């Protein structure tokens, strides 16, 4: 008898961890995603890829394993540097009286000529920046945009979905109307409209730097799927016994919604959240490529691809390869992890 009594129900999250461990694909994917997260944390702390914007190599420096490849662009840049001295325009230049002041001010500034290396581990871009560093920094930006935007969209979608599903009646009618309005505009047009407004409007200077423009665009257009799912779950749960019991002991509506029901629908939210991360990263890459995403003083996988398009024509393929590989590995691992997560959380498969 004792053995039977010992069986306490397993905590849902420990059960999830156990099932994920048993799923080999899921475990490997989790490992890869964790490695990316460590890499991002290091990059944020400045331990990794800190000098991604420093021109450490010659233009289009060859990758180390292709050191002997002819690099015409770098040779050309070098020739331009030693083109002889500037012709003397002192007699005709109206700015000539300022020459001495400029010379003095130039003298005050210290400039060090950096030794530019001919090869870099994974090659250099047009300005001789290290492509590997750029890819690491770009991973940080792209993944951060995807995750932050997905969290914002989840917050909006969950809140509205919970209100709509829990209260029903006119609250639901109003929010359903809002949902219909947002879904009847093709997503890409809504994205473009927002981009146009945020670029030229009074808010443009507010979001000029940082990732917030693209996060707002993604969150504002991407909350509808989450809303639909959460609403359906809340409609199902609001009249279950445990919620009625909570009501009977005097739990407020807010408490029933977010203390009692929310943990029981959190698995649905979690899976949808990870799907959103994948989708948002893809959209961010496209927006940044088009110049509507992260600002130009940041690097993301999208801005790298934008540069790579022109580089490919002159045979410099390494930036394209770096951005593609970093992105493909992360998204594959994350998608597989999402699949495993969904299987592990699905009560039908237990």
């Amino acid at each position: 008898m004792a053995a039977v009594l010992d069986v306490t129900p397993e905590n849902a999250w420990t059960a999830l961890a156990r099932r994920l461990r048993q799923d080999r694909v899921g475990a490997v994917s989790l490992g890869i995603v964790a490695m990316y997260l460590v890499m991002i944390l290091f990059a944020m702390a400045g331990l990794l890829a800190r000098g991604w914007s420093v021109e450490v190599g010659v233009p289009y420096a060859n990758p180390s394993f292709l050191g002997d490849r002819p690099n015409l662009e770098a040779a050309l840049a070098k020739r331009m540097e030693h083109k002889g001295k500037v012709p003397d325009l002192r007699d005709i230049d109206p700015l000539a009286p300022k020459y001495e002041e400029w010379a003095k001010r130039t003298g005050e500034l210290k400039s060090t000529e950096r030794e530019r290396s001919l090869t870099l581990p994974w090659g250099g871009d047009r300005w001789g920046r290290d492509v590997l560093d750029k890819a690491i920094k770009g991973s940080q930006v792209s993944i951060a945009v995807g995750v932050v935007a997905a969290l914002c969209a989840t917050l909006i979608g969950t809140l509205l979905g919970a209100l709509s599903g829990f209260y029903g009646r006119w609250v639901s009618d109003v929010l359903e109307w809002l949902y219909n309005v947002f879904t009847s505009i093709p997503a890409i047009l809504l994205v473009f409209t927002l981009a146009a407004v945020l670029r030229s409007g009074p808010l443009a200077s507010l979001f000029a730097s940082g990732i917030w423009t693209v996060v707002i665009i993604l969150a504002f257009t991407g909350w509808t799927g989450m809303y639909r799912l959460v609403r359906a779950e809340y409609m199902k749960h609001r009249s279950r016994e445990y919620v009625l019991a909570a009501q009977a002991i005097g739990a407020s509506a807010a408490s029933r919604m977010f203390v009692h029901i929310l943990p029981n629908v959190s698995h649905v939210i979690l899976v949808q959240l990870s799907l959103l991360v994948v989708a948002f990263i893809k959209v961010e890459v496209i927006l940044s490529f088009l110049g509507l995403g992260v600002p130009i003083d940041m690097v993301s996988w999208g801005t790298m691809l934008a540069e790579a398009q022109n580089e490919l024509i002159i045979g410099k393929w390494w930036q394209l390869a770096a951005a593609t590989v970093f992105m493909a590995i992360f998204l594959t691992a994350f998608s597989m992890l999402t699949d495993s997560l969904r299987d592990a959380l699905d009560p039908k498969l237990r």
Partner: protein
Amino acid sequence: MVPTLAGVVLLIFFLFKLFGGDPAQILAGQVASQEQIDAIRRELGLDQPWYVQLGIFLREILTFDWGKSWITREQVSHIFLTRLPATLTITIPILLLEASLAIPTAMIVAYYRGTLFDRAVMSICVAAMSISFLVYIIVGQYVFGFQLGWFPVQGWSDSFWKNLVTYAPLPILLAALVGLAPQTRLYRSFFLDETKSDYVRTARAKGLSEPAILRKHVLRNALVPVVTNISLLIPGVFVGSFLLEIFFSVPGLGREIYLAVNRSDYPVIQAVTIYLAVLTMLINLAADVLYSFVDPRIQLR
């Protein structure tokens, strides 16, 4: 549908009103005197209260008269009519090609479900979906257009047939290739859902061969969700190809709206957004009506 439409109009109007830039400032340019700006404001009715402006906005929508583009001075209605054919020349073949490739592929994979082949194809699909669409276009344009020279790198002509035969094939093939992986994955799951049902067990019990079951019984039933999915893709034919249009210099609607965003050309953005929302709603309505014909179990409320 009417309240939704009203919502779309209000959303677009207030987005531009509250968060957009001052149209007079954009139109007048960097160097403009206060009188010029005031004159433009009067002309556009910007000195009126917001409800009058909303009225002007509604009149523009109902009369299809959006005036001219702010930047190119082209009639907005003219932009619509001249750009749409190019877009459709690309998107409709993509839609057809994707469906005709994905359905058989999904059926084959579903036939070999659970085997190594199935798992390998599915893993390849996930990996293929993880590579950005941009990479496919960049590499495809480089390899097939630039290196091998099988297709023109970019371009467009005035003749429909020349476009379809010379300029459109490369973008169409690239898009169809990219669409193949997610659609195969989705349709496979539709086929697998059906293979678990009772009528399939009955068909097996009476000794039908597995290919015959798939072809005759499973396919017909799985086509219902497949058709649903395709009808959901139809609204995408109007601007869904904007990336292809930008890369291949196709003078289509998607490229036009991207250019409009870059130039802060508000009338073009507003017109395209509202009319495509209306079009999307009409297509969805038409799809719903068609369903009740195709499947008598579905009833319109």
